[in-house]
């Protein structure tokens, strides 16, 4: 099976890009908020703030938790689907 190798390589490339993203990048969500400011000439203020906003130390952990949980489930079921053909 060559697909698992290709998928693994793709996943590694993705993760490498993910970690390389790092500093200096602004999220497109934040840029959109700036556009709202431009259009409304800064007259719009958000009427409700997030209940919880993670600090710089917690955000990578919580994003990592999402990625990690997803990756564990994904790998488990991808392997399980793969083994089904042999059964």
């Amino acid at each position, binding site marked *: 099976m060559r697909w698992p190798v290709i998928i693994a390589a793709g996943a590694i490339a993705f993760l490498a890009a993910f970690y390389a993203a790092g500093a200096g990048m602004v999220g*497109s969500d934040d840029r*959109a908020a700036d556009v709202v400011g431009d*259009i409304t000439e800064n007259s719009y203020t*958000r*009427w409700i703030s997030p209940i919880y906003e993670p600090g710089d130390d917690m955000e990578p952990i919580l994003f990592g938790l999402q990625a990690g*949980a997803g990756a564990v*489930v994904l790998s488990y079921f*991808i392997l399980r*689907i793969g083994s089904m053909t042999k059964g």
Partner: protein
Amino acid sequence: MHIMEGFLPHPWWEIWFALSLPVVAYGARRIGLLTREKRDTLPLLAVAGAFVFVLSSLKLPSMAGTCSHPTGTGIGAIMFGPAVTAVLATIVLVYQALFLAHGGITTLGANIFSMGIIGPAAGFLVYRALCRLGQSLFISTAIAAAFADMATYLMTSLQLALAFPATTGGVISSFFAFAAVFALTQVPLAIAEGVVTALIFQYILQARADMLLKMNVISKSSFDRIGTGKKVSR
């Protein structure tokens, strides 16, 4: 593609909730049916859900110093349709709204509508259309997933444009302003997402073509050709 908490004024946030919730409810009902009557499809559902989880957690660099997320909804849309994918997207969006301050609870309806409904619907339709036109399953899946990603971000741009029309040029001018941020950033990510989705789908196809046939994701003729090394179309 997240519209941040508090960034949709009344009545827009309520409107998007009203449009999204029936689809999510229908999707949840369909998942209920799958768990009772088609339990053998559940590993594929888990793959589709986990794929959304992983891809939407990636903050990838794009053009002009901006970073953004893939959506990961293409594979769910292709295998299970938009309504089931809306439920998968909802789970991710709730997590990100509660713990990451990405999106928000009041903007959840709008974010579900773009990422969970319009994106997957676009992916589903593009996949079916390309298969019908005789394209290979790899190409159909890749383009469908890229479209699902792009449609999501274009929908977000439209949602923001409707809520914040420009003084001159109105909604259309606003739409282009938001799309310039979201859609342009997304082009390279959508292409990457298309390729990764097609690779995963190809793996599932090799492992469980029988299941995809049963779920009406591929045609009988495609199923017959798999394993013979010929170009596979639906």
